[in-house]
Structures are given as C-alpha cells and as structure tokens.
C-alpha cells in the first residue's frame, strides 16, 4: 500500500460496522475497533520526569485523578511502555537521552509533550541550553500546555489520547517490514 493510501485510511474513520447477526449472541466488530480497544484500554506510561511537571505527573497517578481507572499504570522501563510523557524541560544534554528512550519503546508508541517547556521551551525559550519544544527531536502526538499543567489537565489529555487511538487504523502504528 502506498503512503497516500495509508494516510487516506487513517484520516477517514468511516468503516462499515456490520449489524449484529444474531442480536445478543454475537458481536460484530472490525479489526480496527477490536485492536484499538486493547490499545487504548491499557496505556502504560513511562516514568520520565525532568522538572516540576514530574510532580504533577505523580499527582495524576494519585487519589484525586486516578489514572489507574483508565488502565494506565506507570512502567519504569521504556521497553514495556506505550506512552512517553515528556514531563519537563529538555536540555540539549538530555535530548540524546530522550531520543534514546523513544527509540527503545516498542511500537505502537505515543508521546505527550507535557507543560510549556516540552511543548515550546516555555520559560526557558531564550536559554542557550534548552530545546525549544520536544517536537524538535521526537514526533509528538499531543501537546499539553500549562506551567505545569494540573493533574486534571493531564487526565484530560489521556482521555483525548484514548479518543485519538480509537480512530486509528491498526496497521498505521506498526513497523513496516
């Protein structure tokens, strides 16, 4: 399939969902719907925090906005995570490590740039040592503004990411052989 064909499928989520053949006895579904359900139901995020956003990230796993409700738990190893939450300022020295961590994650993988620093450099835009937005070094799926964003905002971002993942074509996020 060509590059254009891939894009067309992922941008138009209008699949024909067949009606239930025997109501109540069988559930008809599409491959996309089926596989996406598993993916968005269990987003394991990586514990990666470089600045004050990390404190809010910890809060998000806490009692008030309990990320575990959505099946999101933290993993400490990038090999087992689905979501890289870049929480905090990325300096040029750290940029190599971020790229390495991103490369170590198995597909399908997602990135949320959390906080002003990760989205655009934030407070440190003029600094000689700060990357102005983590999208300069790795692809970013979602930007989350705020300095730092509240746990509710991060929670909202995860829900939005789930909606995003629900509309995907399952093969888009798989390494082509």
């Amino acid at each position, binding site marked *: 399939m060509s590059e254009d064909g891939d894009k067309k499928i992922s941008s138009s989520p209008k699949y024909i969902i067949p009606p239930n053949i025997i109501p109540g006895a069988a559930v008809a579904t599409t491959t996309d719907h089926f596989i996406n359900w*598993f993916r968005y*139901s269990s987003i394991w995020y990586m514990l990666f925090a470089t600045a004050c956003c990390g404190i809010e990230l910890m809060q998000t796993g*806490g*009692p008030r906005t*309990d990320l575990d409700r959505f099946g999101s738990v933290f993993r400490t190893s990038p090999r087992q995570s689905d979501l890289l939450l870049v929480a905090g300022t990325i300096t040029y020295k750290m940029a190599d490590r971020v790229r390495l961590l991103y490369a170590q994650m198995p597909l*399908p993988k997602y990135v949320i740039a959390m906080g002003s620093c990760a989205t655009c450099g934030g407070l440190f835009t003029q600094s000689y040592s700060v990357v102005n937005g983590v999208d300069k070094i790795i692809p970013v799926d979602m930007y989350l503004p705020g300095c730092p964003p509240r746990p509710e905002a991060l929670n909202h971002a995860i829900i939005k990411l789930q909606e995003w993942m629900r509309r995907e074509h399952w093969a888009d996020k*798989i390494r082509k052989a």
Partner: protein
Amino acid sequence: MDRWDGGDMKELAEWVIRDLFSKNPDTWQYTWAIYLAGMALAAVICLGFVAVFAGPVTWVERRTAGRIMSRIGPNRVGPQGVLQWLADGIKNLLKEDLIPDDADKPLFRLAPYLVFSGMFGTFVVLPFGANLIAADLDIGVLYLMAVTTLVVVGLLTAGWASNSKWALYGGIRSAAQLVSYEVPIAFALLVVVISTGSLSTQAIIKAQGGWPWQWFVAKNPFTFIAFFLLLTSAMAEGNRIPFDLPEAESELVAGYNTEYSGMRFLFFLFEEWANLWIMGAITTLCFLGGWQIPGVSPEKISASSGWTFVGWQLLSFAIFAAKVSWIVFIVIQARWTLPRLRVDQLMSTCWKYLVPMTLVCIAGVLFMDLYIVQGGITDKIIRWIMTLLGAAVIVLFFLRARYNYKMDKDKYPGLRNEKMWYPPYRMP
C-alpha cells in the same frame, strides 16, 4: 463398569483402560496413548485454570490497592474494569517484539519459558480437591522444592542475556534472594513432613482434618510459628513487595525484566501472579487442612459414587479455593501496606531470623511428637489453645481494621464529599 475412586491422573487413565476399553493396563499395547492423553488433559486443565486465575487476580489486586490508597483502581474497561487483565494481556501480545541488538538472543528468548515452566511445573503436585490432582507423587514436596528452582535459573538467564547492567543486578539479586529463601521454606516444609511422615501432598492433607483444630497450624506452638515463617518465605520466593528486591524500580530500572517487552514480558507477569496461587496452595495444603471438608473423611469421599462423588469433589475444590483466596488476599494486602526491605535487611531476615527459627521449629516438633501422644488429652488441650490463638489473631485483624475505619470515618467526607464505606455491589 467399575467406579473410579483413584487419586490422580494416572489412576484415571488406568481406570479408562480397564473399564472403558476392557483391557489390562500392564499388557495393552496402547496404554501409553491413554497415559499421554491423560497428561495432555491434566496440562490443559491446569494451564486453563492458572490463566483464568492469574488474569483476574491482577484486577483484584489493583482494585484492592486502589482501596488501600484511597484511589479507585481500574473501573473503565468492561463492567467495573473486570476486563482490564484482558486488555493488558492482548495489548502486550500485539506489541512490537523487541530484542536488543547486544542481547544474547537465544538465551533472551529462552529465559521467559524457563521461568514459566518452573512456575507451571509445581501444578503437577498441587491438589485442587479430594481426587483432583495431576499426579500424586510420593516425593511431592521434594519435587515442589526442586522444580521451583528453575525459576531462579530463568531469572538469572534473563538478567544475563539482556546485556544491561540493571537487568544483571536484578538477576543476581533474584538468584541470591530465591536461593536463600529456599532454605527456610524447605525447613518449614520439613516441619510438616515430620508431622505427616510422608512427602506426598495428598498424604499431608489427609493427615489433617476438616476442622481448624485438626489442621497442622493448630497442632502445636511450633507448627503455628512455622506457618507464619512459611508464608513469609513464600512471599519472598514469589518476589512480592516486602521482598521484591529483584525488580525494585527505585534502585534498578525494572530488574531482570528491564529489556523485556511484549509477549516475553507477559510471561514474567503471568509467572508473578500465578505464583500467588502456588504460594497460597502450598501454605493451605501444608498448614490449613487443604481441601478437607469439615465432618467428611477422605474415606467417605472415596466410598461415595455417582453425583455424590462429583459433589464432594466440587465442594472440596471450593473449600481449597476459598482458603487459597484468603491467603492470596493477605499477601496482596501485605504488598500494598509494607515498605520494601533493603538488600542487607533481606539477607539478615533470612539467615539470622527465619533459618534459626525454622530450625527451632523442627526441633520443637520432633520433641512434641516424641512426648505427646496423638489424640491424647494433652494433644487436645494444645490444639484447642492454638485454635483459640489463631482465632484471636483473626479477631485482632478485624478489630484493627475497625479501629482504622472509625479513625478515618469522620475525616473522609471532608476530602471526597462521599461516605467512606460503600457496599461491594456498588463500587465506584
């Protein structure tokens, strides 16, 4: 047609040959095929059981953890989040299969299966009910100790093959920890073996009775202590949290499974949660009377036939499962309540405290067996005192829980604007 009153899968296969095919199992040429079918049947049943146990128990654990941490836990995936384990499992199966470039590839692929077979091998001798056991080996407990050692080999292989310093640290730690804690486990099991006079798991259960004062835990003070020592050591053997040094995420990244992703990581997770059942089953069969039904002797179960026989089997399985679930729940609570030990504390707990205490228990049990007549008046008095002591421990547990609840009850609505207690059928 004769009635099947045998103990394990081998006797079931012999019954099939004798009574369904009307052949002599010793001379029939297709005996091996029936044996093979019996083995395959036992393996499939055990694998299905452990899969259905290890999955949902992760959900139970996460909900319990949520309750303990005043969170909610997974409640979006399926009704009340019960399908969470399915989503986690299948997502991991569908994830990319990564093997690091510098890893020792054959060993890296092999390690999860070693760990898994070390875990799954124990199900050969673990009974599920009165006659529900894959093979009632004469050397059951010895086999149990031997086959779990394969887990150590697997974890060390995983740590070494990953070619990562954190994984190697985790692997070496797990080897040190698991090999050390096998010693107190073996001694605590020896207490039971001395009391029974047999290594077979079914014989151990049959040496006990259905009522709490007939269990080994209430036999004398030394078995009472040995029960807690075995539970503690089993938690260490299963890498549960007070002892989860091999995967301490604050020190090592994720321990021996740092470089594992996708399906291979799933094997490690599976082993960890299936270990909960094994832990509970070993403790239950050794000290808590196993599947013994109160007031019904094993001879009565063997003598029954037809649907009565099936009913007794199911009832014994239900009793066994209830006891195991109780132990599993305690282990889960301990995991989310206690902080992690340091490495030196872990080793000193084992070698300075658990091993000497289990040795004292062995000596004590030998002494009691020599001087106290089984079924005599002294024996009965000791058993009653130990039963009351055990009941006191359980009552203390509930009183403490009630005290904590009353302490927090008034503060709680101020935080969440809702009542602290909610009924189990209306969880948030």
